[in-house]
């Protein structure tokens, strides 16, 4: 389990994390979403041991992360700006990682060589950005981590490679019980892979739920009222839109409750449509003056 409690981090007077807390259950894939500058990368740098929090606690598997070499040997991370030595080849970096991570598997490395199809003797600097990202995945997964921490991991990858990479990650989750924390702006992609989601803004985690809980807590209803009737004012809706006679209502309740509330008005048609993660994000935060535009694709 990854647990961050009330973490505060200040940089020269600017508060980047302001009491952030999150909890990632073991074996889950946790998506951390939020607008630019929300503090996602900062929280990830705490989880990888780069930053030390000013207040609060950062623990993985019940152990503090800071200066915990034994724990960090079981954590692999891919930052959004992965660093490699200037003249290094993939093989050089493999040797480097192998010298630090006790669980590093050459067998896995050799298998993944076929997946990524990159010449390991090539200097990484000369690879494209997408290929460099593949190398980062290749090495991180070869470390056989119990915890995988990914910051904008698939930026720069083509759609086929994205699918391939996620497939590898999900395979690790399924087979080895790897716990994954991933931050991304790409809500549609997270929706496919995450089972838990945390939403951050202004240095705080505003809410965190399982995806099922989120989807159960909000519903999109498509309704056609009789005689062209408008949406009754007493209905608790977050958002209304209309195309022809069809009203689309976003309501903070589950589908059965919403259907029961609408049945009172004897509509001609009532249909519940599941919300996407992107819609949940927009309607959860939209009313609170959050920087929604930053994360909408």
């Amino acid at each position, binding site marked *: 389990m990854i647990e961050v409690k009330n973490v505060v981090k200040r940089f020269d007077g600017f508060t980047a994390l302001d009491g952030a807390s999150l909890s990632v259950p073991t074996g889950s894939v946790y998506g951390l979403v939020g607008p630019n500058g929300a503090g996602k990368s900062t929280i990830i740098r705490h989880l990888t041991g*780069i930053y030390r929090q000013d207040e609060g606690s950062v623990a993985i598997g019940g152990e503090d992360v800071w*200066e915990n070499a*034994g724990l*960090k040997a079981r954590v692999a991370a891919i930052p959004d700006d992965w660093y490699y030595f200037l003249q290094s080849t993939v093989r050089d970096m493999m040797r480097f990682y192998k010298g*630090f991570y006790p669980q590093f598997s050459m067998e896995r490395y050799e298998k993944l060589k076929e997946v990524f199809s990159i010449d390991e003797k090539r200097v990484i600097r000369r690879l494209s950005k997408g290929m460099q990202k593949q190398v980062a995945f290749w090495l991180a997964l070869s470390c056989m981590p119990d915890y995988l921490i990914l910051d904008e991991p698939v930026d720069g990858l083509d759609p086929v490679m994205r699918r391939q990479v996620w497939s590898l990650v999900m395979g690790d989750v399924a087979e080895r019980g790897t716990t994954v924390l991933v931050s991304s702006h790409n809500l549609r992609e997270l929706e496919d892979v995450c089972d838990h989601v945390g939403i951050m803004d202004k240095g705080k985690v505003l809410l965190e739920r399982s995806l099922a809980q989120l989807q159960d807590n909000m519903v999109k209803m498509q309704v056609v009222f009789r005689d062209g009737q408008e949406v009754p004012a007493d209905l608790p809706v977050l958002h209304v839109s209309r195309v022809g006679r069809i009203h689309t209502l976003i309501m903070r309740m589950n589908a059965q409750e919403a259907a029961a509330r609408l049945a009172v008005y004897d509509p001609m048609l009532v249909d519940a449509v599941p919300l996407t993660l992107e819609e949940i994000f927009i309607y959860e935060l939209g009313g609170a003056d959050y920087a929604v535009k930053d994360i909408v694709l």
Partner: protein
Amino acid sequence: MQSKTSFSKYFNATLFRRNLTRFWPLWGMASFAGSLFPLALLVQFLRGEDFYMWNRPLDFTEMYYYAAAYAVPIVSLLYAILCAMLVWSYLYNSRSVGLMHTLPIRREGLFFTNFLSGMAMMLIPYVIVGALCVLVSVVGGCFDAKGLGVTILAVLGLSFFYFATATAAAFITGNIFALPAVYFLLHFLAVMLDWLVCTFSQGFIFGLSGGYSGVVEWLSPTVYLENHLRVSGTYEEVFQRGELTGVGYYTDVLTAVELQNLWLIGVYALAGAALLAIAWLLYRRRRSESAGDVVAVGWMKPVFRYGVTGLSALLGGLLLYELFWRSFQSGRYYEVLPLLVCMLVAGAIGYYGASMLLAKSLRVFRGSWRGLALTAAGCALVCAVLYFDVLGVADRVPEVSRVEKMTLYTADNNYTFYPDEDAALMERVRAVHQAIAADRNYIMGITGQEDWRSQPIIGDASFHVTYYLSSGLKVNRYYYLPISQQRLAQAGTYDNLLDSLVNSDEMKDRRIHLNDARFAPTGGSVYVERRNEGYDLSSRECAALQEAVARDAAAGAWGQYAWLESDWGGEYALSLELSFTYMNDEGDTSRDWISISLRPGMDNTISCLKELGFITEADLVTNSQLYPEAYDDTGDMAEKFAQEMEAVESVGIIGGADGPTTVYVTG
């Protein structure tokens, strides 16, 4: 499989190997460059050529010692910062610091592994060059184990010290371009500040001398080591004959060699260990996010800001003053208001420059008035303290009881006094010093006039006295004095006191250094103006001349110093200087010399010079005979001026827009 050391707490073999393989161009180039010298020697030897001067084990050892004393500190100073810039480079980039701090290794592991990598990079070139030197010495049959051992110790100690200081500098800053600046500041700030403060103060305080006191020189190790590590060789003069010509000659042969003050390297190595511990503490507290900051340690930021401001105000203020005001200044001492303006301008530039570096932004002006006000107050305070001599520096004349040693340079000669032997002479020197300090207005008034030296009956003299106090401090004063014929005869004036001192029998004895075991004659020179020819003296010739001068002094024919140029016409147009090696109580040696004015009547010295073949009877012409026009004019003017001065009742100084003016009041 993981190596056993990979997870050791303090060392990671992978990182160590990676550092050495990544940075091989640096240590490879250094090894190559260093190897050229022993390789050239080896090639010479294999070709059957002589080793010139290195043909015996002691000569080789002397060469090692010279390298260890003078080359290794400089080379290590420069090379250590290059190594540090490479091994600690990861600290200065947010991406690289992210990778290194994500790895499963504690900071102590990173610290010590990187430090050892850097030390290895420091030592590899020395090992290669040393091995080649040993090979050359073995091939040439000149191997000396003791010399090699001492040199290895010196190289190890110096390499450790310099890399430890570079490491400490690396953890003070978060910017790779700032690292060499911080490093060189660490090494040279003390002497730079010493020079700056002395230079600045001597522009205010009467008699304060020297652009550099050396009091804190030990804080600038390279300077201190270069000045105190010494190679001391003992030579024996032996008679040899040339193999081909059979002509006999004397030659010096090295019989013993020693690297003096080697313990200093040990002390600095210990200081390096302390700095390393500080660096480690800084790393433990270091925030990864400081990558890119000029100063990475929070509490050092104000020190940096106001340190740069202060340095800028002093150094920049002096430069601006020299550039814009010096040409308007009369006399040796600063004019306060223009200097204060220059300091304020330079201080403000330094303050904003430092603020911009710290903030990594050009927008630092808002709310900066407090810092500027502090800078202005600081500059004004410094100027006020120095201008009014609040600390009474100009009047300070140390008591003999507080003095361990006194050196004096005056009347073209050096003197060294010790309280046990020379208490009376030291008191007389103090009396002259006190008289000079009391007469500062008179001296500043005359020397402030541009043409004061053209007045014929006013001569000039230097009076440079240094008191080495028991506390280890030094009081160093230098005065450039007008000496007038009238005041020479006036009891109590510094002119009179100085004349009595210099021309006393005791001082004449001290001047010639005869029977003083601390001074060994080493050589000197003779210059014959009539022929424009000069000769160097050997130690034997120097000793012979020293004895001859001493006999003349005993006969009263030598030793009376002439202060006024008009008196020099009667001297022979010959220059004679005798040089000596002076050994102090600690065994340190230095050079000393005396300048001998040759006058008619110095029969012993003249005979000796003739016997040695330096002069002939034709060379015995006086200055006034050789340069009649100069001494005739001077004589006339002197006579006229002397007549005018006889009527002078008092001398005063008045100030004016064009500087101070000396006023002679006649009856």
